[in-house]
């Protein structure tokens, strides 16, 4: 049976990606990696990897106005709830054009246009990739700048990860999620077996952890909390443990602050020779995470 574990945080910069990379490469058996932060994808930077496949991502259709047919009546812009029409005054009338980034693809304008001047066309909003790492295949993506459909692309990389796990008979999908609690985070968490919330010892870390735990609870997913960089503010551990418990999650362990980690990442040595102090902590934590997976 394939298990899925998603690493999320609420707050950005708590160490999700570094920890996920280390767990997946050093502790997990035959994982598929999924980088579900499709906006700022960083998991591929943690590994040597070679690109296996590239796919264009068409998340929706967007409206296009045929200027030769348009009678400039303005019904489209009056009806559009997303403000997607750009109006240009020209002498005695106005021309209407669609901003594809603002268009949500609802089709209302194309249905309402009395002169049938609006059609819906497929819109590319990013790419997704399959790469090979020494530790297992990695599905990742890059949403085009200014796009909003991150949840759909997140769902796409999740599906591709599930397909790969089945094809290659791999029994763990390790998902590196985005920061925040919005649609992209929901896409990373939906249907996973366990959420691992990586937080940091700060008021912000605790605040955002509580918010993402509320989302996780709403999705019916069990969760555990890992407190990273604990020795930067050890007094935060108890309040974080308490806040986690209030949202039904156990703080299952802590990771020390390792000042050498960013340099090891930059040198490309993080996975093969992690800074001392990290190795045993990571193995212990992985065992605890694994023990919290529901049967």
């Amino acid at each position, binding site marked *: 049976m394939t298990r899925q574990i998603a690493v999320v945080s609420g707050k950005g910069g708590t160490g999700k990606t570094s920890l996920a990379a280390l767990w997946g490469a050093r502790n997990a058996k035959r994982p598929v990696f999924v980088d579900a932060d499709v906006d700022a994808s960083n998991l591929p930077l943690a590994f040597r990897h070679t690109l296996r496949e590239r796919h264009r991502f068409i998340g929706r259709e967007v409206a296009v106005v045929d200027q030769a047919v348009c009678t400039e009546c303005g019904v489209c812009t009056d009806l559009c709830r997303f403000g997607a029409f750009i109006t240009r005054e020209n002498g005695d009338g106005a021309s209407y054009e669609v901003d594809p980034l603002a268009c*949500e693809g609802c089709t209302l304008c194309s249905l309402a246009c009395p002169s049938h001047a609006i059609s819906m066309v497929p819109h590319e909003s990013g790419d997704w990739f399959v790469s090979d790492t020494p530790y297992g295949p990695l599905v990742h993506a890059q949403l085009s700048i200014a796009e909003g459909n991150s949840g759909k692309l997140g769902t796409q990389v999740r599906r591709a990860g599930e397909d790969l796990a089945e094809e290659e008979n791999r029994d763990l999908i390790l998902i590196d999620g985005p920061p925040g*609690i919005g*649609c992209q985070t929901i896409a990373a968490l939906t249907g996973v077996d366990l959420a691992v919330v990586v937080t940091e010892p700060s008021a912000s870390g605790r605040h955002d952890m509580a918010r993402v735990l509320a989302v996780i609870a709403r999705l019916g997913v069990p969760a555990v909390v890992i407190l990273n960089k604990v020795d930067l503010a050890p007094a935060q551990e108890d309040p974080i443990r308490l806040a986690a418990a209030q949202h039904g999650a156990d703080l299952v362990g802590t990771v020390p602050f390792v000042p050498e980690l960013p340099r090891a990442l930059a040198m490309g040595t993080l996975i093969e020779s992690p800074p001392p102090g990290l190795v045993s902590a990571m193995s212990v934590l992985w065992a605890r995470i694994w023990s919290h997976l529901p049967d």
Partner: protein
Amino acid sequence: MNLCVASGKGGTGKTTLAVSLAQIAPDSAYVDCDVEAPNGHLFLRPSITRKSEVTRVVVAVDLDKCTWCGKCMDACAYHAIVIAHATKRALVFEDLCTGCGVCGFVCPDNAIREEERPAGVVTEGYSDGIATRAGCMNVDAPHAHPTLKATLEDLPDRPLVIIDAEPGVTGRVVDTVRRSDVCLLVTEPTPFGRHDLELALMMTRHLGVPSALVINRSDIGDESVRDFCRAEKVPVLLEIPFDRRIAAGYADGRTLLEVRPDLRGAIGNVLERLRALARGKGER
């Protein structure tokens, strides 16, 4: 001047810098646009003067009027409506509904009505002389953008408005940066920071918003961010080396200038150089 503080990567110190900039300028406003994970209030601790609920539109099917024709279901691009003709049932998945209005447009029986659902809260207040505003999406809302939109509406009328953006380069961040005269990008000198900085810089350049950089925890990682800035001619206004005192202060919700008052001059200099960048844009 609207000054946006943004970053590709999360957790680089956006809020730390945004709060510091708001604190050194008289008559400033601080607007927290990271509506998924807003944290500025943990440092500014404003007294709240106003709370406004943000709502979003979802549809409901009026069962007294519905004739189960299914036209709404066929027209919905988000698969948010299911009509079961045989059992005379209608189901709306509110999380999928965008309130676009297509179903109401195609319904021959006038059976679609629109309802409002809570999406978030915008709070306003004061912290010393700083006018504060923060958008906070509800944890049970499916989307962040209604709350962001409300947060960005009618920005406070102050000579300096600091806008704290969410991480990344999505459409929401673009909507935030677009409202600004100048953008301060905050990064850290790591491969992740470097990668996401490149995306953020592409975004600000695309929007024509002048931008400059602060490198936070500047002595961790490597030289790649600095090399990138030299190659791309991005001004680096300040480097702040890693300091356990800053990290410990941050943990307790103390601001950078409370922990390191010696940085006041350096932050003031960052603000002056950003003002000059914004003026330069106006002159072009």
